[in-house]
């Protein structure tokens, strides 16, 4: 529950940065924050704590029975998914920063208010 609260707060901080900040770099930082918060939540989901048992990373050292495998290892699926979404987040952040740089080259400002040319 604590984890859920922390990551929701982080998501809201990121959303606040995206909505209120007018600087494009700060918007990109807000996105990175949101992305990491969701990844954090997602990765934590995999660790289901079974009482009296140690949490082991999901690497198969020796073959065990099915029941043993399912109860003692932490779930590998969220970790794989988070790795994928980190890659996606990298692409998004890189593209957003290069777009911001391109806009700066054309207009001379990172401020979203100063480049407002589209309307309607």
């Amino acid at each position, binding site marked *: 529950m604590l984890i859920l609260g922390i990551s929701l707060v982080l998501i809201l901080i990121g959303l606040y940065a995206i909505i209120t900040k007018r600087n494009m770099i700060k918007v990109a930082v807000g996105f990175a924050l949101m992305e990491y918060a969701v990844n954090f939540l997602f990765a934590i989901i995999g660790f289901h704590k079974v009482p009296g048992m140690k949490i082991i990373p999901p*690497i198969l050292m020796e073959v065990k029975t099915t029941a043993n495998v399912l109860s003692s290892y932490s779930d590998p699926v969220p970790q794989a998914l988070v790795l994928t979404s980190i890659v996606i987040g990298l692409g998004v952040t890189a593209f957003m920063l*290069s777009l911001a740089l391109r806009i700066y*080259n054309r207009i*001379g400002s990172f401020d979203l208010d100063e480049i407002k040319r589209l309307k309607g």
Partner: protein
Amino acid sequence: MSGMTPIVKVIARTVAGFIFVYGCYIILYGHLSPGGGFAGGAIVAAGLILSRLAFGTSAAQERSTSISSSIFESSGGILFLLVAVLGLVIFAQGAGFFFKNLFPEFGKGGTLVSAGSIPLSNIAIGIKVGAAMLSIFVVLASTKYIFKE
């Protein structure tokens, strides 16, 4: 960019090679230990970026780097796809599928030569990620502030 102070240059010269080799290790052992193509490729790219930051580059070098890294990136992607498609194509008579293991009974479990076509995919991803990270860096770093009032 004209490079940094001699201290940085000396340390970077010593460390960059180790970082590169460590990245290759992470890529090659991806099927046995945590890591793999993406993490290893990122470390390889970090080694390359470190030496570029320390020593600086000319505009011509930047241009050639961006061309070669885009070629490496594409060929990494093609290699990865080739491993997948070979799994579909080689096993004819309907037995093959996308990403089918090419060498099912090859090597010994737990050693470097094992796990079928997973190491091949890891190497392909490592090439692609390393080149992509480098080209992202080059593009962001070589964007000069050309704006004039």
